[in-house]
């Protein structure tokens, strides 16, 4: 018995009102002691279900239909709940996606860790229990455990909570740790810290880890082996190097190509066409055939078996059959584009000419010394934004990046007159929008030419209105006569424009998917024919391939119609692809502003450097050798004036390195 975990032909289905959802279909894999296996795929591919079904944490509607699970030398397929309780925490344990909700808010963190310790070692009590908890907290990098263990989860930041969750998971010394998107909900710098932590622990304790994620950069950082899942099946499995450098399955190619890093120098991001199939009636044959440009006739009829590429590398695609035509992988070596060679220079050239074409020298929005303070109660206040100045030129995409809580959204809302800034001025086309009088005078123009798109399309659309009413509403409010016959015609036109089918006109938002809803929100903004679009994290809540589609749409809007954007995001890869100029915010201060390539190739502020170094690169060889630099947040580094150090490159003086 060499393998720690062996899953054979596992199928899991949910039985719900709509029918049988085959979430996991015929999956086999194994995990050796001390190994890190990453499972990647788009959302809805059954990654989480697979992990939870191994731990039997699925709700009652789910059932293991066939196959077997062997863990720690025993067949646990038919274990009862009572037997599973003895294994959970001891043999395997789990870390979940959202640290904000996965700790019980009313029990102190120390008590929750202690509880996990005592489940399997009830003999540990009193002093020794405290010591063990402190030891665990130190292991996961929580300082002053003696103090911190008395605190409640609400007193911990997101990253600290995830550390606490990891401490809970490690309390019973499990041999296997399932990590279900453990860093997806975290900021990029925190993500880097947590990934480093997980890697350290894995090396120190030898815990085998199953890492579920959709981010190939994260995979490159942590994984020894990678399994690619699609429509409930593992379509390719191999060592990290094999998957990243010699992918064989078209879906893996698609995932690789969809990375923004791969599209540098192109006009649009590559997207895998279509959507993953619903798993109620999965299509016959290869489920990916419908989205695969290289699909063979047999793909639609017969399911491909797992072809052996090497002893460790298997892929389920007919392309590997000896009778299949040879198709060269459309993916080059990963990381090729960052070698500073020709491709990069060519890309910069095109980007520069593009900038000249689209962006003019006319300043559309001029923000000067903006400060905003939120009063908490009568005596205290939070400085959300402090002395922020930047300009947006007509036809330009200006990116604003920074961690959560850095004041990006507050800036956006001040720009949109949703908040009245406490200090500073905002001039839009030379009109001071902060001044009540001049705002009133130009209200109609200001309101119709500036539009906003929000992060959460779920709550920014009224659930009780039909799509066509949602899109036409701003026009009705402004008493505009629709340029195309009727409001309905206008809505139809805008929907067509953002790539939505006209049959959704009479649907309600809840009937649409997240990506479609965000398109409706964009169509609503476009209906007013705005000149400035303020997009507050418009892609953060979307799936990767849909993110790419929305970003492509933005790029198209800018190039073809000269819209100007204030694009707020924390995903630096997308920002690098989309934006012309980027401003970096940290704790309410704008620390660095520069043209995109300049910022990414020559960051000057300590915080920008830390932020850039934290982005995971989808290249295992480089990624695994690298560690993120941390930004020690001394207050000094955030003081001082923005000074110009190069063409259009401004940086806060004190923080420059």
């Amino acid at each position, binding site marked *: 018995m060499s393998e720690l975990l062996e899953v054979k032909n596992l199928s899991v289905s949910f039985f719900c009102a709509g029918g049988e959802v085959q979430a996991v279909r015929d999956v086999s894999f194994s995990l050796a002691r001390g190994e890190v296996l990453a499972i990647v795929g788009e959302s809805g591919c059954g990654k989480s279900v697979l992990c939870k079904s191994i731990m039997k944490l699925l709700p009652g509607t789910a059932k293991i239909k066939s196959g077997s699970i062997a863990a720690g030398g025993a067949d646990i397929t038919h274990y009862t709940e009572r037997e599973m309780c003895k294994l959970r925490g001891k043999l395997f344990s789990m870390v979940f996606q959202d640290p904000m909700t996965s700790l*019980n*808010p*009313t*029990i102190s963190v120390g008590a929750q860790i202690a*509880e*996990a310790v005592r489940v399997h070692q009830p003999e540990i009590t009193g002093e020794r229990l405290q010591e063990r908890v402190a030891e665990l907290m130190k292991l996961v990098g929580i300082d002053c455990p003696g103090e911190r263990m008395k605190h409640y989860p*609400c007193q911990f930041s997101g990253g600290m909570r995830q550390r606490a969750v990891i401490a809970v998971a490690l309390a*019973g010394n499990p041999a296997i740790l399932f990590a279900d998107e453990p860093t997806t909900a975290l900021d990029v710098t925190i993500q880097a810290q947590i990934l480093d932590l997980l890697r350290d622990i894995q090396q120190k304790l030898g815990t085998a880890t199953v890492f579920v994620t959709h981010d190939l950069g994260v995979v490159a950082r942590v994984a020894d082996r990678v399994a690619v899942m699609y429509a409930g099946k593992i379509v390719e499995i191999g060592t990290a190097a094999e998957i990243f450098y010699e992918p064989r399955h078209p879906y893996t190619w698609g995932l690789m190509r969809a990375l923004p890093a791969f599209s540098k120098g192109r006009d649009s991001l590559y997207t895998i066409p279509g959507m993953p199939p619903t798993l109620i009636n999965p299509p016959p044959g290869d489920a990916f055939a419908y989205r695969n440009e290289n699909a063979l006739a047999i793909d639609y009829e017969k399911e491909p078996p797992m072809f052996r590429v090497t002893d460790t590398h298997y892929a389920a695609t007919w392309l590997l059959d000896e009778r299949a035509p040879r198709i060269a992988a459309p993916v080059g070596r990963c990381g090729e584009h960052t070698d500073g060679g020709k491709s990069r220079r060519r890309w910069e050239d095109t980007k520069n000419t593009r900038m000249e074409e689209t962006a003019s020298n006319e300043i559309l929005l001029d923000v000067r010394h903006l400060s905003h303070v939120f009063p908490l109660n009568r005596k205290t206040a939070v400085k959300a934004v402090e002395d922020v100045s930047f300009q947006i030129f007509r036809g330009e995409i200006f990116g604003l990046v920074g961690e959560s809580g850095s004041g990006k959204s507050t800036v956006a809302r001040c720009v949109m007159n949703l908040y009245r800034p406490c200090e500073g001025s905002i001039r839009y086309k030379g009109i001071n929008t902060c001044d009540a009088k001049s705002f009133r005078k130009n209200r109609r123009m200001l309101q119709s030419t500036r539009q906003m798109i929000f992060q959460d399309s779920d709550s920014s659309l009224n659930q009780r209105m039909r799509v066509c009413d949602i899109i036409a509403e701003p026009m009705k409010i402004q008493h505009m006569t629709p340029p195309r016959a009727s409001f309905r015609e206008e809505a139809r036109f805008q929907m067509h424009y953002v790539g939505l089918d006209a049959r959704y006109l009479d649907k309600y938002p809840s009937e649409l998917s997240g990506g479609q809803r965000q398109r409706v929100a964009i169509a609503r903004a476009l209906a007013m024919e705005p000149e400035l679009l303020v997009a507050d994290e418009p892609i953060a809540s979307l799936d990767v391939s849909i993110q790419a589609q929305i970003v492509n749409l933005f790029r198209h809007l800018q190039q073809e119609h000269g819209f100007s954007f204030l694009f707020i995001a924390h995903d630096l890869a997308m920002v690098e692809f989309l934006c012309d100029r980027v401003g970096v915010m940290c704790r309410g201060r704008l620390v660095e502003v520069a043209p995109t390539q300049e910022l990414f190739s020559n960051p000057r502020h300590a915080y920008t450097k830390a932020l850039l170094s934290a982005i995971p690169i989808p290249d295992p060889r480089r990624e695994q050798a690298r560690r993120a630099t941390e930004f020690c947040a001394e207050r000094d580094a955030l003081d001082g004036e923005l000074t110009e150090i190069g063409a259009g490159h401004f940086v806060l003086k004190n923080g420059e390195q």
Partner: protein
Amino acid sequence: MKKRNRFVYYGKKILTFVVSVFILSAVVFYVSRLAPGDPLVSYYGDRVEKMTPGEREWAKERLGLNDSVTVQYVRWLDHAFRGDFGISWKYKTDVVDVIGGRIGNTLLLGGLGFVFIFVFSLLLGVWCAWHEEGPADRMICNVGTLTSCIPEFWLSLVLILVFSVTLHWLPSSGAYSVGKERDFADRVMHLILPVGIVVLNHLWYYAYMVRNKILEEVRADYVLLARAKGLTKRAVMFRHCLRNVMPSYLSLMAISVPHILGGTYIVETVFSYPGIGTLAYESARYKDYNLLMLLCILSGILVILCNLTAQIINERIDPRIREQEVSERLEVTEP
């Protein structure tokens, strides 16, 4: 800093309380005089019908009913501040004594009802949540909805019909049989039906709330983590879910006190149970103003106190809300 904050916190609560009671007294005073009816009936009984207009005028003058309502109210306030709430016109004694003689019975009935509802709704809620969507859960939910829809007086009449008239198991009215005031068993027999009806009418609603709250908690992510660390279903339910439900349950129960009391008023009337419910009914009906005022104010104080308790429970028990105050305080010290 900490002490001062707490002082301000409770100071505000007490001020709200006093103002509410004051407003309540004014509203009750005016509204009770708006209602039609002859207040002299409560003082003179049937004799009113034989009174001459002159006698009526004299009686009204004597009871102070000829002054404007505002003058009457100010006079009442003046007396009340000195601790004199006047005499009951019907019983011709101090209203405090009248109420004092009866309030014990109501507290016994309402208190017992409350305790039973408190315990059983928690147990039932947990049981239903445990067997979610099972036959037992569904039956309890359905029966619960049904009994909540039945008005208390009708249920009382049906139960009296069944257990007192037909089966002769339980007495149909009163708090004790004549001459058996000290007999404990007799008292219990008299309490079974009224308490049962109060409990039956309120239990389901609260049990249902507990069930749904627990199910909400069960679906939370932290339950998944708790199970992943190896806790059994029972440990998760009692140590995590129930614990998190408790603050909202306690505040819910605090608000329920006035509802339950309202229920006992009706039940008391049906069972002719000598509590303040019947007293309130009579005083409102026969315009026994002084008695009515004190009863309303007592009930009002109870309602306000319960709401305040609920509020304080909500604000104090949850560490998330407590933390908010701590962090605010910390930031004050920062420049």
